[in-house]
């Protein structure tokens, strides 16, 4: 089950007195699918990284009962490991490892007793994404769509209640992107995961429950979609 998000008075400073992002209030229910759009450099990725606890910020970011900005660096990292899966535009896989090892990457720093279960889940995710027969193949031989599927399997291997995706379809051709959107939306809905996806791709944002529009570091639009 996903986590609800409550943001209040969030300010992400950018140094020299600049403000990268300012978000006075935002509430998302658990299991919501939310798109974030806006021009390049508007602060979309900044929002995503702040939600992951990767940026220093003022105000409050509350995931469920956890006040993220109050946690120290290592506790934030642990929170991320347990609760947040991340997907990136250029996949960020380890090219030297096979698909199975990439999907189960986070098992390497899990306690020994959890590793086998984690690997099993990663393998199931790969199968659900149609890559079950290719788990032993090196990802360097994969197409863009296949790589992003491996990245999704990796993000969901820990059964994290939150999935943050940064332009997940931007490096894919239209057909691959559409298939990936289908898979991502189904997986998120089936597992009740809260999904926040930054994207320029209308095909993706149209499938979300809500779409936020960010311009110049401020939230200018928050609309429900027909999905």
């Amino acid at each position, binding site marked *: 089950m996903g986590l609800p998000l409550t943001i209040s008075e969030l300010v992400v400073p950018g140094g020299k007195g600049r403000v990268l992002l300012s978000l006075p209030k935002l509430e998302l229910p658990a299991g919501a699918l939310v798109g974030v759009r806006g021009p390049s450099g508007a602060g979309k*990725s900044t929002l995503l*990284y702040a939600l*992951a606890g*990767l*940026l220093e910020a003022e105000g409050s970011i509350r995931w469920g009962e956890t006040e993220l900005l109050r946690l120290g*660096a*290592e506790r934030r*990292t*642990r*929170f*991320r*490991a*347990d609760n*947040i899966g*991340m997907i*990136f535009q250029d996949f*960020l896989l*380890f*090219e*030297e*490892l096979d698909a199975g*090892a990439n999907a189960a*990457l*986070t*098992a*390497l*720093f899990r*306690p*020994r007793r959890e*590793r086998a279960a984690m690997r099993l889940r990663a393998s199931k995710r790969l199968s659900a994404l149609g890559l079950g027969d290719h788990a032993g193949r090196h990802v360097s031989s994969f197409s863009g769509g296949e790589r992003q599927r491996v990245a999704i399997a*990796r993000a969901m291997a*820990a059964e994290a209640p939150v999935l943050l995706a940064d332009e997940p379809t931007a490096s894919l051709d239209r057909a691959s992107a559409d298939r990936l959107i289908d898979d991502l939306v189904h997986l998120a809905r089936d597992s009740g995961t809260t999904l926040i996806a930054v994207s320029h791709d209308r095909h993706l944002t149209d499938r979300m429950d809500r779409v936020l529009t960010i311009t110049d570091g401020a939230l200018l639009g928050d609309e429900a979609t027909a999905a």
Partner: protein
Amino acid sequence: MSDLWYSLPALAQDIALTFALLLPALLVGALVLRGFAPWPLTRAILWRFRGASVMFVLLIAISVGMGIGLLAQERGLRRGTAQAADKFDLVVSAPGSELSVMLAAVFLQPTDMPLLDGATYDEIASHENVSVAAPLAFGDSYGDAPVIGTTAEFARDLADDRIEGRMWQASDEALAGALVPLGVGESFTPAHGHGDAAEGDAHGDAHLQIVGRMAPTGTPWDRAILLPVEAVWEVHGLANGHAPERAGQIGPPFDPDYFPGTPAVVVRAEALWANYALRSEFTRDRETMAFFPGAVLAGLYAVLGDIRQVMSLMALVTQGLVAASVLLGLFILSRLFRRQIALLRALGAPARFVFAVVWSFGAALLVAGAGLGLLTGVAAASVLSRVVTARTDILVTAPIGWSEIHFLAGFVSLTLLLSLLPAAVVLRQQVVDGLRA
């Protein structure tokens, strides 16, 4: 505690010291890696940067190998020279430089030496504590081989009684050292002097025949031709050490009145303690000088010991520099895999895991380099030994000893500790900057 340490056998001490030197690295490794399995990622990073990794490993291996090889070689040389002097308990000669006489008598380096007369020789040979007193007569040569006159007893002792053919029985017979290019049955005419200055026809009417070949001794004597000291005196037109009515005699006792002189006498005492008594007895101002070649060598090693320390220090500094360049390389490489590190952090990898990945990458390079360096060192020491043996005829073997193992263990330990630095620096990089790089 120190009593316990000294009560241990040497091998146990060596093993314990190696372990103690490695202990910091083992502890750090255990602490850094505890609870994590970074090896798949370490392997992936090693494979991604395989060219640079191989270069680093080779760099470390060559520097470690050279250090180890030189240290082993230096010890091998000491051992070889000491072994060469083994058969020369006590040498008596005219006063002068002990080092020159030792180089001449033990290592057969040509030098001009004053002679001891018959009376002096007789006094030595007839001393109650002396069991062997062999005159050594240098000065002639055949090709590259020095021709040395001495007694059958000393020649036999030198070859440990392993002589192919037979011992000489007349003054026109000789024994060849193991490396002399003359076979049993062949004849030769000794030249007066050595090398370019040798006068080839000075002893034109002397024809000597090789009747035996000595087993290899691993000393410069392997290249020498030994003959009865009487033969040396005779070819120089001198009396042959025996009164006319006993002119055919070969070997001691010699008649002092017919003894033309000898530059050095190798003395063996009846008992070990007697050597010391003989040394003080025959150390006389302006008459004779008696010394232990082993002690002269020990003195030489003491002087060279400082050089050994300098060499060890230089080897350490070189290794330190290589380690520093490897660390610098790790810094640079860590910039290259900055995105992967940022990704791991973004996926929730604890700082210590990232630290473990970067450290184990450096550790793999250092340990592989040190291991390969050990093999390189063994190979380098063996090649150097062969070269030195071929050039000096002193049999030098340089197996890797515990001091080299300790040196290596210290190097590995220190560099593994130092490679914590690049690992720590990697952690200071901003995750978001790394993801956007």
